[in-house]
């Protein structure tokens, strides 16, 4: 199947960006905003239409320039779109719109450059989601990185955005080179760049294609782990997300990090599942363990944070760990869970970022360390923040809960992975508890005065304008409300789980994908019908939420940490200090850890499979 719509999804935002940069809309801000919003909305609608088609008909394949494959050789570039990719593209579009609306009141003056960059970023996200070509994915990956550097450094009159952008740029550039090295290896072996064509060429290779294929997988995984901020590739993320303008954070935390894992999942299921499929039993525990370390590590770092944006940055790392666990289980049910979880978590987190933005808008001081009690009197924003915090906790009723229960079901049904739900719950208690604690500190004024907590932290969270205004503008509040409501909608709308499972089943159908791309035949998939969360699961979920609230409000907010006998206290204080020191913000350290991560991932794969 094909559809002409796919030829336009990139053209709309890119033309919008060129128009904005070229005419600088006659220096009229409203006009610039209107062009940007129209382009973003147009592209999102196109993605939505593509999504609807993909759900109905399976893979949609679009050959740019009309260069269809002959005898299985594809010299052109294709967009090969399945429901999961189209869904992620549409979701990226929605968050872009939210970011643009939010930016409207966030900056004093936006200029033409900001919306132009956001539109290019959107095009990069969409292209990455839809592309069926390995090198083309890399191009969009690089485009994403470059725009993100520029957006992070947008408020270059302050210090922290510069440091954030620098570390971001260095680490992600290196991640890109690792991916490119992996691509070169695959091209050297197969002479192809089309995902399906590479997959077919490697399928059935003796001894899973030898060390070359294993190393290529390791390098590509490492490169994508940088973008996904998997521990220990994550050091750049907190610096960048803390200092980027808050509207941009919506996009960064909501979809950009997720793109790293999406890319890995796409490449795994189209290229590597053939040659390495027989070794899934070896790859699975590696991915799940790395995911668990990231989830728990991100959670612990959350507990140690004082600033709301930096907290949300580490919460993103924790979530990425949870998603990696889901992907790492390498089956349709868990992947469906990840898909739902990503969307719900992205919406809720974006809502929380907007709440922080409102705080910055209303209270000039939000950039400083004294966040305690800052939100007193902002009743609606506080309420919204609290609801969002519950969403981060995967409370039943939210899409995050549905996603988690799908992943956990998949894990429990696989022998040897019964421990996974405990790890996931533990990470969620840490993350959710920290967010709830932040809510209590900001909006209720709980906890000790922040003044005596400066140890180990010297960040100014400053990006934003310094006006204190009397009312929360609707363009800030309404998006926040809709984002958080969206997080609930993904959990309660009927059919979300079923849709996700059938999309995931199509996504992991390696042969079906190759057939659709190279042969033009869309295969039928017969996904299992997922059972909705049982009463028992819901009760456990509620119990976990209670536990999270207890932990967040009882332990984290009043700073009762560390607790226990003196020896334990000294020890955990020492650990906390070491963790703070480890996140030095030094590009050399970040890169050293990145290389270590790559060496561990590739080395372990080669030892186990090579």
């Amino acid at each position: 199947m094909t559809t002409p719509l796919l030829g336009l999804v990139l053209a709309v935002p890119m033309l919008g960006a060129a128009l904005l940069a070229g005419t600088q809309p006659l220096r009229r801000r409203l006009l610039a905003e209107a062009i940007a919003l129209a382009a973003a909305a147009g592209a999102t609608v196109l993605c939505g239409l593509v999504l609807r088609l993909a759900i109905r008909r399976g893979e949609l394949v679009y050959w740019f320039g009309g260069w269809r494959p002959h005898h299985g050789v594809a010299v052109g570039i294709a967009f090969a779109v399945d429901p999961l990719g189209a869904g992620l593209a549409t979701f990226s579009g929605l968050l872009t719109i939210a970011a643009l609306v939010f930016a409207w009141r966030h900056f004093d003056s936006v200029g033409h450059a900001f919306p132009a960059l956001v539109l290019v970023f959107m095009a990069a996200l969409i292209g990455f989601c839809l592309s069926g070509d390995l090198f083309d994915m890399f191009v969009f990956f690089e485009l994403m990185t470059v725009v993100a550097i520029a957006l992070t450094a947008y408020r270059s009159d302050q210090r922290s955005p510069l440091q954030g952008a620098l570390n971001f740029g260095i680490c992600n550039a290196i991640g890109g080179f690792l991916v490119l090295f992996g691509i070169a290896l695959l091209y050297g072996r197969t002479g192809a760049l089309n995902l399906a064509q590479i997959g077919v060429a490697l399928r059935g290779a003796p001894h899973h294609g030898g060390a070359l294929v294993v190393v290529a997988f390791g390098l590509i995984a490492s490169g994508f782990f940088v973008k996904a901020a998997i521990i220990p590739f994550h050091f750049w993320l907190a610096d960048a997300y803390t200092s980027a303008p808050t509207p941009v954070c919506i996009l960064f935390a909501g979809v950009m990090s997720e793109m790293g894992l999406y890319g890995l999942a796409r490449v795994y299921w189209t290229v590597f599942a053939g040659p390495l499929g027989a070794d899934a039993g070896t790859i699975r525990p590696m991915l799940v363990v790395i995911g668990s370390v990231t989830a728990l590590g991100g959670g612990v770092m959350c507990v140690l944070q004082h600033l709301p944006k930096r907290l949300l940055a580490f919460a993103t790392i924790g979530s990425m760990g949870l998603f990696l666990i889901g992907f790492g289980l390498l089956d349709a049910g868990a992947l469906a869970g990840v898909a739902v979880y990503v969307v719900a978590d992205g919406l809720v987190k974006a809502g929380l970022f907007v709440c922080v933005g409102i705080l910055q808008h209303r209270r000039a001081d939000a950039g400083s360390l004294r966040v305690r009690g800052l939100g007193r009197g902002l009743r609606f924003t506080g309420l919204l923040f609290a609801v969002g915090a519950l969403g981060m906790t995967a409370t039943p009723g939210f899409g995050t809960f549905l996603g988690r229960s799908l992943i956990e079901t998949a894990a429990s049904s696989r022998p040897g992975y019964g421990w996974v739900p405990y790890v996931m719950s533990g990470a969620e208690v840490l993350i959710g508890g920290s967010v709830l604690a932040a809510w209590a500190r900001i909006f209720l004024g709980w906890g000790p005065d922040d003044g005596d907590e400066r140890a180990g932290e010297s960040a100014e969270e400053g990006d934003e304008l310094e006006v204190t205004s009397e009312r929360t503008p609707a363009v800030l509040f309404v998006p926040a409300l809709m984002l958080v409501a969206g997080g609930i909608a993904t959990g309660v709308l009927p059919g979300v789980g079923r849709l996700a499972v059938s999309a995931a089943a199509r996504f992991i159908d390696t042969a079906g994908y190759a057939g659709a791309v190279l042969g033009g035949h869309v295969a039928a998939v017969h996904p299992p019908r997922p059972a909705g969360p049982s009463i028992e699961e819901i009760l456990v979920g509620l119990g976990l939420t209670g536990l999270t609230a207890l932990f967040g409000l009882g332990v984290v907010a009043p700073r009762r940490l560390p607790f226990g006998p003196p020896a334990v206290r000294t020890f955990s204080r020492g650990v906390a200090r070491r963790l703070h020191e480890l996140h030095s913000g030094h590009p050399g350290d970040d890169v050293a850890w990145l290389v270590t991560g790559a060496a561990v991932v590739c080395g372990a794969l080669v030892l186990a499979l090579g």
Partner: protein
Amino acid sequence: MSFLPFAVAAWLLLVGLYGVVTSRHLVHLILCLGIVQASTYLLLLAIGYLHAGRAPIFVGITVGTPAVDPVVQALTLTDVVVEATVSALLLAIALQVDRRFGTVDPDAIRELRG
């Protein structure tokens, strides 16, 4: 001997990373990133090379003459130009860092921590 091009590519990757990790000057660091970048060009072109192959430009030679792989060259060509502008972006950030921090030594740039 025929492994030499690939070995040089791997060497440039690692020595460039070494430069990045140990750098004491942001401009130096950015130029080291360029070395890492160059390693990927070298790898791609080395992979696509064919003994006694001509450049894939069919002026004065007939189609069917053995030629080296054109795809890797196309991939590399655009990347060369594009990555220079990315380096420029990083250089601009380095200039701004110098303005706000008064230094371009990564050891002295400590704003975000913990």
